[in-house]
């Protein structure tokens, strides 16, 4: 028998479509798990890409370093005091030969309101280097200047989506209330969508000096972004800065750092680690659902074979060997896998489009995902279809003559 005989395939397709109800449920079971698998995988990939894009977008190139106040894990609750990072620390670091630029800021989640509508938003007190350090400029209006800093001006620059949020038509010149005090909007930032509970495009920036003395009333800072000259040895730079900070903060021996140094590699690594954990978890769920659909397919296949026992007996009587019968039913399983794989993929594309309407995630199309899901479908169908196929070979052809 040839490997792919068109007539043999035609016979299988006809048999497959002879019981449409059965076929529907077999495909449905698999389609649900494959759609989930595809969507989860693609959304994960999409999130990863967007975070990497966002990092690049934030001038977090390979020559950048972020110092965040408070020790502990890179992301998560701090395990030490957070009020030890001072402007004086930054001044000393700035004197290092490889440091090109430093931009300090302090931040808080504050109530921001406009015409009676209030929201808890992230408010950052930033210095004049902020735009340069983060590659983030105003699209309309202007950024802060020296005079704003010196006069502790009550002005603000807002994220691209903030005017929309408060339904402000012409934001420049409008006044919003931050913690009960009016601030004039002098500029709107370029859109820079990325993740986080408090989205960047809904952020409010105020002058660093105003933030420290009028809003937060504190003498420490929350973070510093450093840009280095090209070809700086990152390892050496990080090490030097760590030593300076430990010394200035009187940390010796086994005392933990009361700051965190975040390099681009670390942020990517952290993100990959986090997404790996989530991916493994989601993958496990998908695999369980695949196994469930496999069991459903196996049962429906069993029912199918029992129902078609006289036809299978006939095939045996007409000369079909066990090998041919197994090939027959495994090919049928492959067709189910192919059908489900294609439907599942299309559904996941539609689902991703829908998700992208409500979230910042962009839909991602990849042939790799398609092939992976097809491979999973095939494995499921073949593994769970093999038992019913073997059962088919056990059918006694003598049942055909039972009529007497």
């Amino acid at each position, binding site marked *: 028998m040839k490997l792919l005989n068109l007539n043999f395939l035609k016979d299988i397709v006809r048999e497959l479509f002879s019981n449409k109800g059965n076929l529907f449920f077999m495909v449905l079971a698999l389609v649900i798990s494959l759609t989930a698998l595809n969507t989860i995988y693609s959304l994960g990939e999409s999130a990863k890409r967007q975070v990497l894009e966002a990092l690049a977008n934030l001038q977090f190139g390979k020559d950048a370093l972020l110092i965040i106040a408070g020790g502990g894990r890179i992301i998560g609750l701090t395990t030490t005091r957070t009020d030890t990072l001072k402007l004086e620390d930054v001044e000393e670091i700035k004197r290092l030969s490889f440091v090109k630029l430093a931009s300090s800021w302090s931040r808080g989640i504050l109530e921001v309101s406009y015409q009676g509508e209030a929201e808890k938003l992230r408010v950052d007190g930033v210095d004049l280097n902020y735009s340069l350090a983060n590659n983030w400029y105003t699209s309309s209006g202007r950024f802060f200047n020296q005079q704003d800093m010196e006069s502790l001006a009550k002005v603000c620059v807002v994220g691209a989506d903030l005017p929309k949020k408060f339904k402000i038509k012409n934001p420049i010149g409008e006044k919003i209330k931050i913690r009960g005090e009016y601030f004039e909007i002098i500029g709107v930032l370029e859109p820079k969508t990325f993740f986080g509970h408090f989205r960047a495009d809904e952020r409010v920036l105020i002058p660093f000096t105003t933030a420290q003395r009028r809003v937060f009333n504190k003498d420490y800072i929350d973070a510093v972004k450093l840009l280095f000259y090209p070809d700086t040895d990152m390892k050496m730079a990080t090490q030097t800065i760590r030593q300076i900070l430990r010394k200035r903060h009187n940390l010796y021996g086994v005392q933990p750092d009361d700051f965190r140094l975040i390099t681009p590699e670390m942020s990517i690594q952290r993100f990959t680690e986090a997404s790996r954990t989530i991916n493994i978890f989601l993958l496990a769920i998908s695999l369980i659902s695949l196994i469930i659909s496999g069991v459903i397919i196996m049962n429906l296949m069993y029912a199918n074979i029992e129902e078609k026992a006289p036809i299978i007996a006939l095939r045996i*009587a007409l000369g*079909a*060997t066990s090998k041919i019968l197994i090939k027959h039913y495994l090919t049928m399983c492959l067709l189910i896998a192919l059908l489900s794989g294609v439907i599942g993929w299309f559904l996941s594309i539609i689902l991703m489009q829908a998700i992208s309407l409500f979230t910042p995630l962009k839909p991602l199309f990849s042939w790799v995902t398609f092939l992976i899901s097809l491979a999973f479908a095939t494995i499921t169908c073949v593994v769970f279809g093999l038992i019913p196929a073997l059962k088919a070979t056990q059918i006694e052809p003598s049942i055909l*003559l039972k009529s*007497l």
Partner: protein
Amino acid sequence: MVKKLVLLQNIVKTYQTGNIEHQVLKGINLEVKEGDFLAIMGVSGSGKTTLLNIIGLLDKPTSGTYIFDGQDVSKLNSKEIAFIRNKKIGFIFQAFHLIPWATTLENVLLPLLYRKEGFTKEDEKEAVKLLERLGLIDKIHAKPSELSGGQQQRVAIARALINKPKLLLADEPTGNLDTQSSSEVMKIFKELNQEGLTIILVTHDPEIAKNAKEIKIIVDGVFVEK
């Protein structure tokens, strides 16, 4: 000398139901030569179906020797048996057993699907010729549900003949047919036998059995004299 196609020697078939052994065939001896037309008659439970199953290689005897076309079939493996069923034996069943989703032509070509070489355009032409002879030329693309009982049985006959078998086994072939269709089918059988095809027919109807050249009666697992 005419060749012996089927030679059964002391064939015994026992079925086990729990602890009870039930002997269905109790030492059957049978010789069928090429060109014979044998009718096996018997009442329900006499063992004629079991015998037909064994002759058609659909079942194995508990003991005894079965030589088919000069080969001792007890020495063959399942693949070789499948080959014989495919190439040398044509089956006709009381319930027709056509594949419901396949057309007349596809049903006729089904045995060729299980040959090593599959089937060609030539085989399709051959099938059309057979269907023409059996008066089904206008039903080539019809599904079994669109055919009458007599037509379905004629499709089954065409299917049994497509591989040019040496032996045609018919199990109560007219059991589900009206008188006219029955006589049509028996006429075809007679013609085929005249052309040299060996036929073994199982029936409980003496009128049908009369069409055969020879009649054997089975009672309680053994052949008896008329």
